[in-house]
């Protein structure tokens, strides 16, 4: 179903190599706040981290699991509201609420998996889409608790003893977001490289064969969705704590479209692709702030263009470029210009 070249089967890259590269990547991000000192740029980076967490977790269910879960942003929204409600009404410690929101999202994911256990393809899209709308309607209708269309304001923020998170030019929040992203990425990569990950991929690529080898479709699907929900919910809770407000916009189609395009632009079944695409798209979108109302139009055209030219996303494009570079080097002796043309593999 998906491009086989993009599937990271366990054992392809040695985990030591991958860990070293990941460490290098995060090391670069760790020193960033010392280079980028103004709070606005840091804010953009924090948002990019949040999107990266949501998008890369979506890649787990969508890319690896092949489950077209269109309610993923609802899991994020549930995290946002869970944090807001837990800190407001139960007066839970913010850090505890952050973790608890992840658990709430996980439970919600298990709940939404139940009706889609028997479904395939487009029907999963429709049910999960319906689930997202249902959650939004519930939030809207319970306006006494959730604030309805007004949203929630003055949500409790996170705290670090002996440090003021508000007046540090977003220094602290940067590292908290980066920390969550690091945990989430390690969790996702370990999961997809594990035996469970292999069985999830097997179910996606050849369901009948995988089932005949004793893999339970229902159990793996619940695991996939639940695993993709935890850090999504935590990201939602962090978002609520960081913005200090919550609104039903998080359930809207526009945010879903943006994050989905991050997953697909980055290339599915890579985890890293979604993270890189989140950075690229967030920063690109910010750099177009001057275009005002034209911004969504430009973004939409760009998404369509990339999907038409490189349906396997930016990671597919990168692979094609690397391959044709390799071919270029190999072909330097015989001059056949047409052989060096970048071409999609299929």
């Amino acid at each position, binding site marked *: 179903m998906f491009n086989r070249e993009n599937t990271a089967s366990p054992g392809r890259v040695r985990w030591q190599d991958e860990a070293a590269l990941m460490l290098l990547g995060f090391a670069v991000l760790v020193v960033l706040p010392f280079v980028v000192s103004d709070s606005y740029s840091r804010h953009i980076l924090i948002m990019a981290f949040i999107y990266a967490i949501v998008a890369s977790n979506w890649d787990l269910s969508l890319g690896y699991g092949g489950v077209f879960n269109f309610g993923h942003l609802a899991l994020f929204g549930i995290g946002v509201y869970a944090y807001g409600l837990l800190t407001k009404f139960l007066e839970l410690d913010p850090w505890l609420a952050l973790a608890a929101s992840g658990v709430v999202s996980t439970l919600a994911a298990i709940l939404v998996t139940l009706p889609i256990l028997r479904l395939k393809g487009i029907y999963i*899209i429709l049910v999960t889409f*319906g689930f997202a709308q249902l959650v939004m309607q*519930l939030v809207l209708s319970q306006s006494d608790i959730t604030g309805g269309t007004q949203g929630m304001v003055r949500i409790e923020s996170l705290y670090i003893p002996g440090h003021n998170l508000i007046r540090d030019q977003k220094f602290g929040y940067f590292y908290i977001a980066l920390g969550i992203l690091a945990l989430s990425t390690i969790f996702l990569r370990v999961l997809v490289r594990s035996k469970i990950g292999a069985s999830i991929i097997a179910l996606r690529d050849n369901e009948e064969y995988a089932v005949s080898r004793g893999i339970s479709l229902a159990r793996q699907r619940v695991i996939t969705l639940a695993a993709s929900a935890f850090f999504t919910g935590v990201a939602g809770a962090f978002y609520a704590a960081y913005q200090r407000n919550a609104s039903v916009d998080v359930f809207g*189609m526009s945010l879903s*479209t943006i994050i989905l395009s991050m997953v697909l632009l980055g290339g599915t079944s890579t985890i890293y692709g979604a993270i890189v695409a989140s950075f690229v798209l967030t920063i690109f979108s910010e750099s177009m702030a001057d275009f005002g*109302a034209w911004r*969504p*139009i430009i973004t939409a055209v760009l998404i*369509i263009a990339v*999907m038409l030219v490189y349906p396997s996303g930016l990671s597919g494009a990168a692979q094609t470029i690397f391959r044709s570079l390799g071919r270029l080097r190999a072909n330097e002796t015989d001059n056949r210009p047409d052989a060096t043309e970048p071409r999609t593999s299929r």
Partner: protein
Amino acid sequence: MDAAAQIFAGGLFQGSLYAVMAVGLALIWTTIGVFNFAHGVLMMLGAYVAWQLTEFGLPFFAVLPLSVLLMAGFGWALQATVVRPLIGRPNIVLVVVITTLAAASLVENGALQIWGPRSKQLPALGDGNTMIFGVGISLHQLTIILITPFVLLGLWLFLHKTRLGLALRAVAQNEDASLLVGLNVRALYGLAFAISAGLAALAGIFLGGYRFMSPVMGADPLLKALIVVVFGGLSSITGPIFAAYLIGFFEAICSYYFGLYWTPALLFAVLIVTLMIRPQGMFSSKTRGLA
């Protein structure tokens, strides 16, 4: 008695709107096997095109067919740009979702740029109100209730009694065999999109004469149409039609007894239960194909 008649009229009206929307969605799904998330904005654009044409001073009886035709052309163009190049790709269902979503965002923001955020309204299909069986109903709504069955019947006749309709159904049933007998499958895909977009435009004109128009007016009807096609099953044209009226009545009953707030939640609950019991929809067999 009064309540029952009220619910009946409301259900019939909503059902008609949903039927026109949902049939277009189902047509694309059955022939091409993709879901068009831009269907809602096609409806919105149809209403705006009609509004623009009336602003030019055209009489309304000319505006209606003209905007439906223009939108059919737009639907064909949409298909040619964001769907056709992807046909044959292994993950087409997913990629088409994102390209049609992006196209929807493009059209929606484009409409916002061209026509601005201020609400507009189309002239109604009929002025004034009338009383039927003791229920007050606007002539506009009554006209829609009366026109819709003819539109749907026309579509059914086209699909079942003409050669072109037969070809469309053939593509829906078996694409490879259709290619083998020499059908122009690409042109038929374009035709399916054009018909679908024309129907969406019609629904937009229906809605625009009754509610205020805005660039986001297509979102809610699209959602309802999604529910209808899931409920009715995607494999036929008749299934969604029955489902549209059923959902229309269900909604009318719910909003009468439980209030507007709870209606969407109840609707989704019904949807999810339906899918758990009958994943292929209420009125359909498991095969894909227009029947």
